[in-house]
């Protein structure tokens, strides 16, 4: 196996903290593909999504009925909008400018069941959406976002995690093969609150999901996990940003991806900024990719900016390994069939992330979905 380990290296304080922010799409120049935030994303398919004129009407959704959960539409100028962040790229701004009202989900109390928000009827029209999820103080809740069907969507989701709340968010992308989805997940995590964010992306022509986490309160923490499976012609991108902005915070970022088939492409950019207020920060981010076949490409770029000396730890790692013929031979020489060998390797590789969901039903569903991904590509002869 070829492994490239990037040793933690300290990138001098630069762009991230000073990056331009605006909710107005016209404040951003047209996307050329040369910008840091666009250099890995194919430009042509997303043209419509980085521009004005998206359909910003209310989107259709279904929400499980759980005590302590309420939903309503609010104006984009509501105080709760823009609390967790503002767009740093044109797609996010286009979504913002294009949305008429935001869906506000309020989670309050220790919820005894997981809340599931399903979107499966978005259709093929280019559209914008804005969602605000607010976990009230000391709330303990799990929110699962299930995305499937057709989509051509640019959206922003804000998570406001109030003092002492513990929010788990699982976002699952199982879109149709031709779907386009560009999302920014802004989070503001207050004093002693934690956000666990798990993203699983399996389906879609292009999915770009950028979690941008502002650890605002002292003692706040976040764990970000990602699992993705990209096959032929699929582009899956994550630009993860964690901003440590108060003392004694902890962050962990772990993203793992499997790639199979010609022109499968994944991008992971992990930015961690440890700001001047973040005494005692403990931070680690890593990305691992498993390339199953020739012709697939995994780009992986960790960045660390540190503005303060007094921290507990900060590190990052990035590794891309191949599942090669020698591995296949080895497993087969122990009696394991070729298909089983691939399944074994991919399931083993991604299980660490899927397990974090802690919802047996969803975990089982996703394991099956991952295996189905392997089978589809095998039948398609893309190996």
């Amino acid at each position, binding site marked *: *196996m070829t492994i490239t380990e990037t040793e933690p290296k300290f990138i001098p304080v630069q762009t991230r903290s000073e990056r331009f922010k605006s909710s107005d799409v016209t404040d951003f120049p047209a996307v050329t593909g040369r910008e840091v935030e666009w250099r890995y994303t194919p430009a042509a398919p997303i043209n419509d999504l980085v521009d004005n004129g998206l359909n910003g009407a209310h989107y259709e959704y279904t929400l499980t009925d759980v005590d302590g959960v309420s939903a309503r539409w609010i104006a984009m100028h509501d105080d709760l909008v823009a609390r967790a962040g503002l767009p740093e790229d044109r797609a996010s701004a286009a979504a913002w400018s294009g949305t008429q009202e935001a869906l506000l989900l309020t989670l309050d109390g220790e919820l005894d069941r997981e809340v599931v928000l399903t979107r499966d009827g978005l259709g093929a029209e280019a559209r914008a959406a804005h969602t605000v999820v607010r976990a009230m103080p000391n709330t303990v809740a799990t929110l699962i976002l299930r995305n499937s069907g057709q989509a051509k969507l640019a959206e922003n989701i804000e998570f406001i995690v109030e003092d002492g709340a513990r929010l788990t968010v699982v976002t699952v992308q199982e879109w149709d093969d031709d779907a386009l989805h560009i999302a920014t997940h802004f989070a503001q995590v207050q004093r002693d609150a934690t956000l666990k964010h798990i993203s699983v992306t399996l389906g879609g022509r292009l999915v770009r999901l950028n979690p941008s986490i502002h650890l605002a309160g002292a003692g706040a923490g976040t764990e970000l996990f990602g699992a993705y499976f990209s096959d032929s012609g699929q582009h899956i991108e994550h630009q993860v940003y964690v901003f440590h902005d108060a003392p004694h915070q902890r962050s962990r970022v772990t993203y793992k991806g499997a790639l199979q088939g010609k022109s499968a492409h994944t991008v992971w950019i992990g930015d961690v900024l440890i700001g001047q207020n973040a005494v005692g920060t403990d931070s680690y981010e890593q990305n691992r990719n*498993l390339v199953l076949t020739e012709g697939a490409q995994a780009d992986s770029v960790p960045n660390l900016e540190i503005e303060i000396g007094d921290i507990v730890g900060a590190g990052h790692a990035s590794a891309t*390994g191949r*599942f090669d*013929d*020698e*591995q296949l*031979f*080895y*497993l*087969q*020489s*122990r*009696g*394991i*069939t*070729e298909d*089983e060998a691939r399944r*074994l*390797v*991919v399931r*083993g*590789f*991604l299980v660490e992330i899927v397990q974090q969901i802690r919802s047996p039903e969803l975990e089982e569903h996703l394991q099956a979905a991952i295996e189905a991904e392997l089978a589809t590509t095998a039948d398609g002869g893309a190996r």
Partner: protein
Amino acid sequence: MSTLAIRDLHVTVETDQGTKEILRGVDLTIKTGEIHAIMGPNGSGKSTLAYTIAGHPKYTVTQGTIELDGEDVLSLTVDERARRGLFLAMQYPVEIPGVTNTNFLRTAKTAIDGESPSIRSWTKDVKTAMSNLKMDSSFASRNVNEGFSGGEKKRNEILQLELLKPKFAVLDETDSGLDIDALKIVSEGVNRAHDNTNLGVLLITHYTRILRYIKPDFVHVFVAGRVAEEGGPELAEQLEEEGYVRFVSEGEADTDAVLTDDETASVG
């Protein structure tokens, strides 16, 4: 009783310079319970023979046969061969990212037996086999061979041998890279498999030291892609004294010299 019969085996490999014939008519028959040692200079084709038996796709058989109890082994896939009872302990075991040893062993056992082993006895078997091989229990939860030292990888091969219980095992330089204690531990593992399951062994080695622990019934001298001479254990002693000089003809005189036994102990 089973028989693994290799007859007139010719094997080529594709190289940058074109097709190269490496095995040039190998004849070898092993019966269950027998231990055969193969010794021969670097590059003489020992690993090629081992891989060809296991079915590595890199090697092309151009002539000859391999049969297991009369069945044509060459027409079987790699995994089918393993399920028929052939095992290869590799000279360079492969790392498998993302798959724990535990998961791997259970999957392999299930594949070979055609049914999953009973959880309780299997867990116990794995534990016992690991402790016999003086492998720390942490190796169970680590990814297959990933970050293992050379010697640890070799132990892991023998662990699989003991748990999968094949009919025939080809051990390709399992002794290379083992320290003195590990050599003994690994040899005991092979002997246990031999005694418990009447394993037939094809032991490829450069050193007579391992033959003090694993007693061969037959010794074959392998030179330039074929068996040049056969004999009993005394042949190994003789090679130790004389080297391969008298077997190596003009054409093969450029093959690398073989390390002496003393040099093995220091290898990691």
